């Protein structure tokens, strides 16, 4: 028998007996940020491709959620900080090797951009909206003129927002479960999927709903492919990554991962959406909420399980 233990009584809060430095705040932010990224990316993409009239909800309505999600996400991040008074240091330093630094600056750009995008379409919700001040009206017409540029900026930063959280986690090689480059694309796809599901939920246009059901189906397919690929990678990798994979293959996170993330979050909604595309009438609220729920659970389980995976003892 091999016995390896710490004999000097170490029990550092949040480090021992296993790492639990990040709690609900981080996965919640990852989800909110990812979903906002998906919403904004889809809105920008369809605007650039000139399909604004076909997909009015996606381009003009759904994005109203984005600033709310981003603000709540930022709030969650702020709550998580343990040295809150110094948070401004994030914005007087850029560390190119730190994905967290990218994230801070990306959020710095995309949050105001999302507000502006919503401001341009505010009359869809409040028809009697009046900007009142002349300079505000000038600003609005400025952005309306350069809406395509704005859309490009929004598209690029939304994609960075959607993918960087996965890259951030995958850069921690100390947590073998996260240390896979699949995580970035997986999170991005999950975010896009949640964004598409939101439009599916909100749209009153049957054709739009059908199109987004199709989009979502494809995205879920890609996600499943990434997940299979991720497991293949782990199981063919080093001992620590094999052990990390086993957290989901018989270990403590098996049930929650396969049921909440894969079955409820991906397979069943995909089935429902497939049936929707056939002749069956499925209320779209069902697959949409399940996809969003799955996206949330994916973040939670990856963050918690990742902190459980380790190199030592």
């Amino acid at each position, binding site marked *: *028998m091999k*016995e390896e233990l710490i*004999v*000097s*009584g170490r029990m550092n809060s949040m480090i021992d007996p296993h790492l639990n430095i990040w709690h609900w705040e981080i996965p919640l932010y990852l989800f909110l940020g990812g979903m906002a990224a998906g919403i904004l990316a889809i809105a920008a993409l369809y605007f650039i491709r000139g399909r604004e009239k076909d997909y009015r909800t996606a381009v003009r309505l759904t994005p109203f959620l984005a600033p709310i999600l981003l603000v709540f996400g930022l709030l969650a991040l702020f709550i998580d900080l343990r040295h809150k008074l110094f948070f401004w240091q994030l914005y007087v330093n850029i560390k190119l090797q730190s994905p967290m630094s990218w994230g801070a600056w990306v959020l710095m750009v995309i949050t105001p951009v999302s507000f502006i995008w919503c401001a341009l379409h505010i009359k869809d919700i409040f028809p009697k909206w009046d900007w009142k001040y002349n300079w505000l009206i000038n600003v609005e017409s400025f952005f309306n003129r350069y809406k395509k540029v704005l859309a490009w900026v929004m598209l690029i930063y939304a994609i960075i927002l959607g993918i960087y959280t996965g890259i951030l986690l995958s850069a921690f090689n100390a947590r073998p479960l996260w240390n896979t480059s699949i995580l970035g694309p997986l999170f991005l796809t999950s975010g896009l999927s949640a964004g598409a599901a939101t439009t599916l939920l909100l749209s009153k246009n049957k054709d739009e709903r059908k199109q987004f059901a199709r989009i979502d189906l494809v995205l879920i397919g890609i996600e499943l492919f990434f997940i299979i690929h991720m497991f293949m990678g782990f199981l063919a990798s080093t001992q620590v990554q094999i052990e990390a994979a086993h957290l989901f293959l018989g270990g403590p996170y098996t049930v929650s991962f396969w049921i909440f993330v894969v079955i409820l979050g991906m397979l069943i909604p995909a089935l429902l959406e497939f049936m929707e595309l056939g002749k069956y009438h499925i209320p779209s609220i069902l697959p949409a909420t399940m996809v969003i729920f799955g996206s949330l659970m994916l973040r939670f389980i990856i963050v918690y399980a990742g902190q459980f995976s380790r190199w030592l003892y």
Partner: protein
Amino acid sequence: MTNRRTFIKISIAGAGAITLGAGTIKAMDWISKPGNGESVKVDLKRTPTYCEVCFWKCAGWVYKTSEGRIWKIIGNDDDQHCSGRLCPRGTGGVGMYYDNDRLKTPMLRVEERGKQVFRAVTWDEAIKYISDKMKDISSKYGPSSMALFTHGSGSSYLTTLFKAFGSENIAEPSYAQCRGPRDEAFFATFGEEVYSPEITDIRDTKCLVLIGSHIGENMHNGQVQEMSDAIDKGATIITVDPRFSTAAGKSKFWLPIKPATDMALLLAWMHELIYNNLYDKKYIDKYATGFDQLKEHVKDFTPEWAYGITTIKPDIIRRTAKEMANAAPAVIVHPGRHVTWYGDDTQRIRAVAILNALLGSWGRRGGFYRPAKLSVPGFALPAFPKPARTWQDAFPGKFPIASSPVSNALIDASIPENNPGYQIRGWVVNGTNLITTIPNQANTLKAIQNLELLVAIDTMPMEITGWADVILPECTYLERYDALRITPHRKPGIALRMPSTAMLYDNKSGYSITRLLAVSLGLKDYFPFEKQEELLDWQLKKVKSSLEEMQRIGVKNYEREADDLYYTDDENVSFPTDSGKIELYSKYFEDAGFDPLPKYTAFEEPMEGFYRLIYGRAPMHTFSRTSNNPNLTDLMHENSVWINPKVAKEWGLVSDQYIWLKNQDGIVSDFPIKVRITERIRWDSVYMVHGFGHKQKLMERCFGKGASDTQLITKVLVDPIMGGTGMRSNFVTFITEKSKQEAAL
């Protein structure tokens, strides 16, 4: 007090008015303000002290922050005991000062509304109560009916007081509960004891043989440091232990011996050395007597014979004997320290002493050196009255070889049913938690019930204080002067202890307490100096130093004058024995009616489902003394019971599970203990660290943590030679949560 005593759980409410000193310490604020070491402004002035956390008494320096808080304690580079490096307990001494569970005020047992509680009293009240009672006992029964149980720096003053009072019943539990057998065994063989610190020349040895000694887990600073030096120099370590101790982990040979059979191994080694002519013939011829009787005695104790008893293979016994002989005289068969195991302990250490003699290690480099101790005059005191009775008059004829009063004998003499020659009626207990020190707790408690006076002098509210009539709270060593540390070592040396900071609570130093008692008892003449520092200065001036100098340097070492560190080849050494030689055959024992040469005795083995209880030390604790120390509880806050994986599998136990232990007499541990499943322990035994399982609620860090081994040591094998209490013949079985519930149904 004629009413039956109850154990008073000292609560903050019961402590009455607690007077606080200059600095009120909040519960969590036991350490200096957190921050970078850089940002803490330090007071570069340092004060010398010597540590009181264990008996090694390493000298050190106390550093404070500019705000006056104690920052850290480090070793004094000139000190022979520690060479500038303290052990974890000494480094953690800071915690002793800041422990807010400390005793803060004198307390008196009173009865209120039919319940016994402690009331906070002034020092005058407490001292008067004690001296009135002592005078009462003296007039009714004679002064010898007062007994002192003591450990630590306060012993010297209280000893003077008691002798002046007329009682020589002064017992250090470290004698009969710990080192007594080995001191008597070496005394009988070489005419000298092994001292504290032990005079083992480990740093220059080529072969260190440890019989059960667990240096490394037992953190006797100098011994651990020197063992490390020896390892660096390539010394061989041979460890004889049923447990894979830390020392075993560094040994060339680990002999996983069956418990209670060490004597057979020692005798076989003697056989090997003698019959293969591996012993130091020149040394024996010149310095020893009784060789022929020894040779005849060990004739049949072959390694094969020992194998059958110890389970150590014969060729290992031969190889290790050769290893020792090759290294001789730079070899140490370590006498150990806590050797009260089975009741034949004096004889077992006699075997160790004989082995050392055969190897020629006594008085040689790498073996045992000749200690030198500075002679420091004490202030002339009036002669002590001759005590009417000594401790031996309580049980005439018992323990004839004991050169020190036997604590358990004094305890037994406090119980009238034992029909002692005279009954002990009052105890003063200083710096020792008798409840967890003395095995067979029921007996100790029975004795306490018969006392008319029990005084506890302590820094912490340990279990003994809960039974006392009067509690006198001493300040910690960091807040007081004490007697000079004058210990034997390679060079004569002294160390000063002085207060580094103001007293936190309504405490007094041991010297002050004793002097107040002396004055109250009319014995002021024995304590002519009111201020201890004046006495210290007087003494220091007699050895060409001064208080001022010692405050600056902390430690002063002198040159050897009398003799050399080791015997020289042409030296004609005269040993302080009856014959003037090393007595391999002990006529001294024979005349007292004991075996002149050690014999093997078989001891009881555990019954089915039971395991031998073995206990020991952890390097970060000194039993009760540090149990509640916040620095050290951070390292280890509970003990665990080590169980072999085969046994754990049989019982279905898992690591970190909590179980209760029940011994052969049906005693169940008060608190559950954590299971550690480890290959390091034999399948017929379990191991736990001594000093946990405390019952005083006020000690918030150690209350209820771990289990007490003392509670489970109910069977005591008393050594007839000197009264040592053998404690390793107790066996335990396990009670899991499940079986407890089933039993309740």
